């Protein structure tokens, strides 16, 4: 069965076409839906998976992802909570990760007040570069992703901030539940330990991607849809291109197929 996957679009979303293309290539049935139409139709439950793609929803006004997140949690909070509770897979890429954090869905799966923040990069710049990622969880959503993978990031607000004063406590909880799915690392797989540019944003504990405790909602700053074909990789002409984004999205589609 090819799973129906809702790819959410709003004003300022700009990675939707490539995301839809990637999902279709992998045998899913993606449907691009504008957030206003979703609010009107409330058709979320007709889908087996949800992807919130990258971009600059609502022009990154107030904070990245903040406005689209309120559209979801205010107008569709119950539907979204049910979708998450049923264990249907949800993927937030870049701005989509920011949206899931702002809805409260990440990291603890509860629509409500945000429990962490994605803030301006420590470099105070927009960071667009390929990074290495260390796989730290066996979440099904990551599919057959190898221990060390490569994907590009492109964001200005990708720095994970845990509540000041309680950061270690929250990190311990995330680690206990295997919720840290991806960390920035060196090419050989050593955690970046905050060092730039391996960790491009200054993200706490090199966090690049997080899941809910059940591993069914994944938010990540790197773009799997931009690492979908070897020819998108900077070293493809020398035959060293990888397709790690395809591998990850394959895992997501498989998961949605079982939902």
């Amino acid at each position, binding site marked *: 069965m090819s799973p129906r996957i809702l790819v959410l679009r709003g004003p300022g979303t700009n990675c939707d076409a490539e995301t839809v293309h990637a999902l279709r290539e992998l045998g899913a049935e993606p449907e691009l839906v504008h957030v206003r139409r979703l609010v009107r139709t409330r058709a979320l439950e007709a889908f087996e998976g949800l992807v919130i793609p990258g971009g600059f929803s609502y022009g990154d006004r*107030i*904070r990245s992802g903040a406005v689209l997140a309120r559209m979801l949690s205010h107008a569709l909070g119950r539907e979204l909570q049910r979708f998450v509770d049923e264990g249907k897979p949800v993927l937030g890429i870049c701005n989509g990760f920011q949206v899931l954090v702002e809805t409260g869905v990440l990291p603890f799966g509860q629509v409500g007040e945000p429990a*962490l*923040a994605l*803030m301006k990069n420590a470099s*105070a710049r927009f960071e667009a570069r390929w990074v290495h990622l260390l796989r730290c969880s066996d979440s099904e959503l990551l599919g057959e992703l190898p221990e060390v993978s490569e994907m590009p990031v492109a964001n200005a607000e990708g720095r994970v*901030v845990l509540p*000041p004063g309680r950061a270690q406590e929250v990190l311990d909880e995330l680690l206990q539940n295997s919720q840290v799915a991806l960390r920035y690392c060196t090419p050989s797989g050593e955690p970046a330990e905050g060092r730039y540019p391996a960790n491009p944003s200054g993200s706490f504990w090199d966090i690049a991607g997080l899941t809910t405790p059940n591993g069914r909602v994944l938010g990540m700053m790197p773009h799997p849809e931009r690492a979908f074909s070897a020819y998108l990789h900077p070293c493809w002409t020398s035959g060293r291109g990888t397709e790690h984004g395809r591998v990850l999205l394959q895992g997501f589609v498989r998961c949605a197929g079982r939902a």
Partner: protein
Amino acid sequence: MKWEVRVAYRRGVQDPEGETTKSALEMLGYGCVEEVRSAKLFIIEGECTREEVEQMCRRLLANPVSQEYEIRRVE
């Protein structure tokens, strides 16, 4: 009625905009600068109560994890 809402990073959260501004001011010769913190100012006009503005801050304008806010009635 006119309200001003100032949203800034909480103490202890790195403020890259503030840091960059500080180093740029130092470059221009302002050795007197000890710290710069960035903040966003929202000016809200309308018949809103302080409680409503408080709610707006909690629900949208500030992320409670990394930011703090200050509300001031200006008119």
